[in-house]
């Protein structure tokens, strides 16, 4: 069995490597033609694939998955369409440096069950744009819809002249098999989006990785905020695809002076504040006590399903379950990330305490990901940004749609959000095609006049002071 798995892995990777060898000969025009063809095919099938993903995973809302598919195809295509990713991408006569884009090689891409078809199309597009073959590993709960997505994209790529095996798919049936491919010496990069374990495995593989894991997004509503606007915005985000985007809001933090007003606004907009007993019941089914990770059974589920599972009755039409908590950590399961329409709610007696709560939430599994502030006070916004460890600090913005870029800001549209070193990533950027190229720098000889015009003997003269040497070094006459 093990031998078969090794052979299977070698076969997949050998195919990808041959595709990489062929692909690196393509010019920009050929590459762009393939990318356009795949975008068109993916976009054309956005509704079918959204429905498939919803039916197969039982998560989210199919109409919202259509929007995710639009983001992953039309909007991603628009953002990378004119980008130079082949050959010379810049040349500066002043410095004599010319930059050349080179592909990386076979990329192993892991796709989460929460956004299966959209993440698949997104990763395929950015890999093809950078001339890298891609091997997609699907979640076992979304293997059919991902396989169909790959089939559609691959056919479109071949029609446009792409190399054979430039897109392959494996179903994540065996963890050992996934790890075997991750660690394979011929894999150039792992592009992993998923849970903590997966991301850690990617980074432990010995191959370069861009692994994006969980978030725990705190949202601070400042005294200067427009409360009805903020609440409406938060609801539109947290209910988007039933909260499956990892940038979705996880906790609302306000000051005591605003608590009543904010609560009433949430209630007015059909959110339900759980009683202390109900908080315990929902916490028990939403978070697995042993690992303090969210239960897969509630991810992407509507409020009605969560309420039934928890054995509680909530008003019809409830959009979000709100849990007012007094603390953060293991005794408060709902203070952890839960990708479902459940929001923790905190009230602080002063501004500093509110900021400290945001910090604690940020450090509870969400380092480097996303944070949000609703405020019209620029100094408060900048203080918040400076305090939190978040790759994206969104201002007056729904975080699901804001984090992925394009809709509410000028971040690149992406379904893989870099979390910096806090999330064990090398970047805080929204990952896109430019992150998937090696940039060679051709550096022409341009002797530095300062260096060569300076009497080097000064560096060996201990009687010279630093100021004297620096003065002479920069003296230009």
């Amino acid at each position, binding site marked *: 069995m093990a031998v078969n798995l090794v052979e299977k892995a070698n076969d997949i990777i050998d195919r990808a490597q041959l595709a990489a060898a062929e692909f690196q000969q393509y010019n920009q025009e050929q590459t762009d033609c393939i990318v356009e063809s795949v975008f068109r095919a993916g976009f054309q099938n956005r509704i079918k694939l959204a429905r498939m993903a919803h039916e197969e995973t039982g998560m989210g809302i199919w109409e919202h998955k259509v929007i995710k598919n639009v983001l992953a195809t039309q909007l991603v295509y628009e953002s990378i369409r004119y980008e130079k990713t082949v050959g010379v991408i810049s040349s500066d006569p002043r410095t004599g440096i010319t930059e050349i884009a080179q592909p990386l090689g076979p990329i192993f891409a892991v796709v989460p069950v929460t956004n299966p078809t959209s993440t698949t199309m997104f990763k395929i597009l950015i890999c093809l744009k950078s001339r890298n073959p891609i091997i997609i590993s699907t979640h076992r709960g979304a293997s059919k819809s991902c396989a169909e997505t790959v089939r559609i994209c691959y056919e479109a790529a071949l029609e446009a002249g792409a190399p054979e095996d430039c897109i392959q798919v494996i179903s994540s049936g065996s963890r050992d098999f996934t790890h075997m491919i991750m660690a394979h010496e011929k894999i150039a990069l792992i592009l992993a989006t998923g849970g903590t374990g997966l991301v850690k495995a990617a980074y432990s593989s010995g191959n370069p990785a861009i692994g994006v894991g969980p978030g725990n997004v705190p949202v601070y509503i400042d005294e200067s905020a427009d409360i009805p606007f903020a609440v409406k915005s938060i609801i539109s985000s947290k209910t988007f695809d039933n909260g499956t985007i990892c940038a979705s809001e996880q906790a609302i933090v306000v000051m005591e002076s605003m608590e009543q007003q904010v609560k009433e606004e949430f209630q007015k907009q059909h959110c339900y504040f759980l009683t202390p007993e109900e908080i315990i019941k929902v916490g028990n089914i939403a978070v697995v006590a042993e690992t303090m990770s969210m239960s897969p059974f509630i991810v992407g589920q509507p409020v009605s399903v969560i309420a039934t599972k928890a054995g509680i009755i909530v008003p019809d039409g409830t959009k979000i379950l709100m849990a007012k908590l007094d603390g953060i950590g293991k005794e408060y399961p709902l203070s952890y990330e839960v990708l479902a329409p459940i929001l923790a709610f905190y009230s602080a007696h002063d501004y500093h305490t509110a900021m400290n709560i945001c*910090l604690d939430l940020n450090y509870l599994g969400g380092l480097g990901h996303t944070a949000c502030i609703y405020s019209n006070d620029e100094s408060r916004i900048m203080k918040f940004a400076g*305090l939190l460890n978040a790759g994206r600090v969104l201002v007056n913005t729904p975080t699901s749609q804001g984090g992925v870029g394009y809709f509410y800001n000028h971040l690149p549209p992406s379904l893989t959000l870099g979390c910096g070193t806090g999330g064990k990533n090398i970047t805080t950027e929204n990952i896109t095609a430019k992150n998937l190229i090696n940039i060679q720098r051709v550096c022409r000889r341009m002797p530095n006049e300062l260096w060569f015009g300076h009497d080097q003997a000064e560096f060996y003269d201990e009687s010279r002071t630093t100021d004297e040497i620096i003065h002479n070094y920069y003296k230009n006459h």
Partner: protein
Amino acid sequence: MVTFNYSPEGKEFTATFAGRLDTMAVQKLSEIVQVNLPESPGTSGDKIIFDLKDVEYISSSFIRICVSIAKQAGTGKFSIVHSQPLIKKTFKISGLDELLNVS
């Protein structure tokens, strides 16, 4: 820069700090703090609280003192209260916020 208060009922010893606790300041404070601490805090059952409400900067040497005293006091007998967000972040980045029970 530091004041001390002892509450016999709660057996709580509170040291309230203020200002910038940089390396120079901490050098001066270190002995004062040690002298004023309850003897054998861990065994006497006293709780030691450092109140940082008016502290605007802490050096690594101050964190070291906190760790040293927290270890002397034993589990659950030492805490830091009223830290401003930037100070709290400093403890978090040091990775010692849980050991020092920072709030």
